[in-house]
Every structure is written in structure tokens, then in C-alpha cells.
């Protein structure tokens, strides 16, 4: 039985996993880089170990330091979260070799699914359709150009070792192939320590649909339905929902059968996700298996009522699956928005900074998985995701309206985020009609500017602050209920006077 868990991650996912452990009565160990000494995830554990300097390669990706921290604190299990070393077979093996439990699949499954070309071969063997591709394209320009021609344009260049949009490029014309290939390789090397990339035919206007699976150590595998993650920018998901508005019961049956077949083919254990492209003609193609917890796992938790982190822990300690497929029933609809330090008006450039005001939405059916706190300076070394906002509603429309209300209530000042953009996406007719596909943003928001609905009211707020800063004894909050409000936290404000 697991007694003490080290979480080899940071931010919201570290906090979410640590909370799951605490609820199960387990003691907890956080790790942090020197840039994260004041990070909220560090304070969320019973113990915390510094694992090195800010760059991930010297801290969150440092296997020796992580195993050392587990040994030093007496942890008997390690949860990798997502990203960083979550899909690194060598790390999983090192954990096992150190006599600890790795909360995830076997190194063999990680390795076999982590190599995208091998994953494709296994999918084909399992009878699951895949998109045309070249799994090991030559790097010599002329040969590469020829190989790309065989796959067919438009094509996608993807990292062999990674996921999440890093090391990924779309190429629509042969003339851009060489530069894109090199850039993708560089990004892949930097993100995953493995610069290999492969080519794949690009399916036009597809939906990104994935199936969540859970498998135990005794050969039992179940699925928890699908998630649609079509709303993407920079090839990375920004809004996810479940169920998919495009998945009929027949598609769901075929897709979840395919996911289970692949899971069984690799003797999969623990939580995993099988990703598919769903084409407008309802055909679907296997993309890859993510051998870890997904960023967007909360929406599956919201509709199924199954705690995926606690399921991972129970499976990792050898417990046979307590869920039969027929026990798993999705109820209602859930949507997640990723809240990142990025500027949607500037091509989603990262926008790190110090969070000077933070007010998270709340209320029935609203869940915030946050990795930040007021006063926290978002380090520039890591992924720009600050938090995830997930909502549940009885229907897709109820969830959509709840999400809009929650986004309007969400206050983050100090870091630019996509909150106003997300509201516009959710309010777009194409979204409310369920007409989502991976080009949604490029198609409906080729250019986007910050909305100015409340500009005058905002100016009035700023002007009154200016006035109060100059004449602090003036009107406003007064009487016995005078308390610290945002209006009273301000000092000098340089203004022109009448």
C-alpha cells in the first residue's frame, strides 16, 4: 500500500494530485525548482524538496534529483503528473529500479506508445484506422521533399517523442517544408530531448476527439467516454468538452472499442488517453496514445463522477478495477477552459508577470484547478498555464452559459490571459451550435481585438481611483462597514488637475 507520494511536477496539476493524496490519507512530498520556492504547489505538501535551478532540464526533468528527493523523504511512490517526465520510459524505469511505485503505465507501454511510429503500427495491427504518414522521413532536403510528396499535402510535422503541440508544424506547400522541418526538430529536441519528427497527412477541418481509459494490473480495461478538444491555438488545446457534440452513440461505440483494442494490445495499465481525428464524414483516425493523466481530465471527472487521480493511485497499488464498464455513466455536460498567461490579441504570445489581483469564480458546477495565487510571479521557465476552469451543466447549453458567467467573474490582473477571448469563442454561434473543429479559431477569429463593451465604466473606475488617491477623505465607502476594498489599496496617481 502506498503511504507517501512524491509529485514530480509543479503548478495546478501538482496541487490537484497532492490534494487527491491528502484526501486518501497519504502523506505528500512536493518538489520545486529555485524559481518555484514561493510557488503554491510547493506549499501544498507535507514536505518539499528543492531539485535544482530554474531551467526544467536541471530540475523537473532531472531524474537523479527526483529519485534522490523520493529516497530522502521516504516516499514510496512517484506521480509524474503530465508534461515533464510523465511520458519518459527511462524515468518510469528509474523509479521502479529505485524500489518505488511509478503511478502510471509500465515503462514498456510508455516506450511503445511514446514512439509515434510504433504506436501507429500497433494501431494498424489492432485494426484501427490511421492517417497516411511517413514515420521516419529522411533529413536530406531532396529526399525529404520526395517523402513529403508521397504522404501528400497538406501535411503535419510532429515530434516522434512528444505531444501537446510542441515540435509540430503544418505545411501546405512544398516550399515551406525544409524550414518547418528544422524548426519542429529544434522544438522537439528542446521539449523532449529527442529531435526526431515524422510526417503525416493533414486531415482538413477535423475534430480532435479522445477516449479516456483506465486499466488495472489484472487485465481489466474500461473507457470513460470521449472528450472533444477541437478548439486550439498554436496547435494546443484551449477549450475541451465532453461529450463531443459530434459523437453519436454509433461513433462512440466504434471509437471506444478502438481505444480499448489499442489499450489491450499494449497491456496498458493505469490512466491513459487514446486520441483520434474525427473527420466531417464521421470517419476517424488514430492519432496517438497519451500514457498519462491529461490536462483536461477534470471534465471526464465531472460527467462520470470518477476521480481519475485517486483511481490512478488505487490502480498503482495493485487494486483490481472496482468499476465495470456498465457502471460508468456520463451525466450532463462539462467544459474546460485553459487559463494561460498569454495575449490573444498578440497571437497568444506568452505574457508572464506578477499576479497582482486574483479572484476565482465559484458556485454550483464550477471547478477551478489553479496553480497560482495573488502575489505570485509566474516564472518564465515553464508552461504558461495558470489554471483550468471547468464547469458542469445539465445540458451543453447550461454548461456553456455557466462557463461564460464564470469567465466574466474571473479576475486575473498582472498577467494577460485569454479570458475575454474565451468568452467571445463561447458566445460564437458556431460554438453554441457545436460546429467545433481544429481550425475554429483561425476560421472565426482570424483577427481578434480586446472587446470594449465596458471601456467607459472601466475608465470611470480608474478615474475615481485617481480622484480618491488625491483626496483620500472624499466620498465613497464609509460608515461602520468601511473595510479594505480594492478601491482603498491605491496610493499616488499622477493626474492632470483642473
Amino acid at each position, binding site marked *: 500500500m502506498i503511504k507517501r507520494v512524491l509529485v514530480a511536477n509543479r503548478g495546478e496539476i501538482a496541487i490537484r494530485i497532492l490534494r487527491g493524496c491528502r484526501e486518501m490519507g497519504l502523506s505528500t512530498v512536493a518538489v520545486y525548482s529555485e524559481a518555484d520556492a514561493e510557488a503554491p504547489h510547493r506549499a501544498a505538501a507535507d514536505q518539499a524538496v528543492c531539485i535544482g535551478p530554474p531551467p526544467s532540464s536541471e530540475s523537473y526533468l532531472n531524474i537523479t534529483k527526483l529519485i534522490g528527493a523520493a529516497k530522502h523523504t521516504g516516499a514510496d511512490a512517484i506521480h509524474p503528473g503530465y508534461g515533464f517526465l510523465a511520458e519518459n520510459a527511462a524515468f518510469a524505469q528509474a523509479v521502479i529500479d529505485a524500489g518505488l511505485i511509478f503511478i502510471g503505465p509500465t515503462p514498456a507501454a510508455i516506450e511503445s506508445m511514446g514512439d509515434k511510429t510504433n504506436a501507429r503500427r500497433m494501431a494498424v495491427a489492432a485494426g484501427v484506422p490511421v492517417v497516411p504518414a511517413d514515420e521516419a522521413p529522411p533529413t536530406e532536403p531532396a529526399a525529404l521533399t520526395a517523402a513529403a510528396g508521397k504522404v501528400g499535402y497538406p501535411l503535419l510535422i510532429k515530434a516522434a517523442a512528444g505531444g501537446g503541440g*510542441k515540435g509540430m508544424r503544418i505545411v501546405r506547400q512544398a516550399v515551406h517544408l525544409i524550414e518547418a522541418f528544422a524548426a519542429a526538430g529544434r522544438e522537439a529536441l528542446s521539449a523532449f530531448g529527442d529531435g526526431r519528427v515524422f510526417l503525416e497527412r493533414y486531415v482538413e477541418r477535423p475534430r480532435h476527439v479522445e477516449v479516456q481509459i483506465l486499466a488495472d494490473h489484472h487485465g481489466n480495461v474500461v473507457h470513460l467516454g470521449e472528450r472533444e478538444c477541437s478548439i486550439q491555438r498554436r496547435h494546443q488545446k484551449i477549450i475541451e468538452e465532453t461529450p463531443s457534440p459530434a459523437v453519436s452513440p454509433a461513433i462512440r461505440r466504434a471509437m471506444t472499442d478502438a481505444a480499448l483494442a489499442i489499450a489491450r494490445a499494449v497491456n496498458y495499465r493505469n490512466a491513459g488517453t487514446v486520441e483520434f481525428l474525427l473527420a466531417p464524414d464521421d470517419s476517424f483516425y488514430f492519432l496517438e496514445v497519451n500514457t498519462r493523466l491529461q490536462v483536461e481530465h477534470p471534465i471526464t471527472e465531472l460527467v462520470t463522477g470518477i476521480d481519475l487521480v485517486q483511481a490512478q493511485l488505487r490502480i498503482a497499488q495493485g487494486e483490481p478495477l472496482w468499476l465495470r464498464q456498465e457502471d460508468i455513466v456520463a451525466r450532463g455536460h462539462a467544459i474546460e477552459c485553459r487559463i494561460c498567461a498569454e495575449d490573444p490579441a498578440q497571437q497568444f504570445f506568452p505574457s508572464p508577470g506578477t499576479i497582482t489581483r486574483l479572484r476565482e469564480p465559484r458556485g454550483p458546477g464550477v471547478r477551478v484547478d489553479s496553480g497560482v495565487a495573488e502575489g505570485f510571479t509566474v516564472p518564465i521557465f515553464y508552461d504558461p498555464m495558470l489554471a483550468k476552469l471547468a464547469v458542469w451543466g445539465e445540458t451543453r447549453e447550461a454548461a456553456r452559459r455557466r462557463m461564460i458567467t464564470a469567465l466574466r467573474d474571473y479576475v486575473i490582473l*498582472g498577467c494577460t490571459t485569454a479570458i475575454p477571448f474565451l468568452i467571445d469563442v463561447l458566445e460564437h454561434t458556431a460554438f453554441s451550435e457545436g460546429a467545433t473543429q481544429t481550425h475554429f479559431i483561425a476560421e472565426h477569429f482570424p483577427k481578434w481585438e480586446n472587446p470594449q463593451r465596458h471601456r*467607459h465604466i472601466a475608465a470611470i*473606475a480608474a478615474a475615481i481611483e485617481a480622484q480618491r488617491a488625491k483626496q483620500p477623505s472624499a466620498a465613497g465607502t464609509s460608515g461602520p462597514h468601511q473595510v479594505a476594498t480594492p478601491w482603498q489599496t491605491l496610493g499616488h496617481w499622477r493626474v492632470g*488637475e*483642473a
Partner: protein
Amino acid sequence: MKISLRDQHGVIELDVRADGDRYVVEIDGHTHEVRLHGEALVVDGHQHTVATARDGQARLVAIGGEVHRFEPHSGAEHTMEHVAAPEVTAPMPGKILQVLVQVGDKVAVGDGLVVLEAMKMETRLSAEAAATVREVRVAAGDMINGGQVLMVLEYGG
């Protein structure tokens, strides 16, 4: 008290007078009655939940999912039409991966200038118009701050 605020859309002139437990605010020729209660800003009887923070000399205002940034506007400054700035500045802190041009190079609109990485993402900065590269102030591998000048162009080259 007359107050001038400036955001990316221009200058807003306001006149704010405290009057007992309320404010009278004139903006764009309209007069509004404003009260503050807890987190509510009550303008002509309609409530808005508003949160604010400082950002240097500027104020950030969050309202209904929007974020506005106002700087104090002194009369001396004049609003200019947007023209491509000769300085190429870093949009965020990060690291220079590649410098794609040299001093003296002529670039066309959209040509890549520099590739930088921040928060694990690779981004290319491009020329906003045809120009000649006058100065290059960074090299591959440099860590940079947000707003730092990376190179100087001369437009219309």
C-alpha cells in the same frame, strides 16, 4: 477634478467630483452618478463588479471578463497614429534562439527577424513593413526581458 486617461484606443477625458457619498462623473459629454459599495461600482443605478490593480503608473481594471489598462495622460503628449516603430522589442521575457538578419540587410514585410523562446514556446518576430536593419543588439543564447529592444530598423528601406 479633471482626469485624462489613455489606453490603446485613445484618450478619455473625465471630470470627477465628490458629492457627499457619491461621485458625479462627466465623460464624453454625459454625466453619471457613481457610488462605491464593496466590490460594486454603481453607475446610474447599475452595478458593476470591478477589480483594479496597479501596473507601474498605469491602472488595470477588470470588469465583466474584460481587462482595461489606463495610463495617466498628460496634455503635453499627443496621440499619434500607429506607425511601425523602428525598434523591434521583445514581446515577453525569454531567450534568443536565432537571429535571422544582419546589420545592413533589407527585409520585406513578414520576413523573419529573430526567433525567441519563452515559456517553452518558439516564436518568430517578423518585419511589419519593408525596412533596412540598422542595429542588432542581441545574439543567439541571450536571455532577454520583456520590452527589451532587440534590433533597430529603418522603414521604407
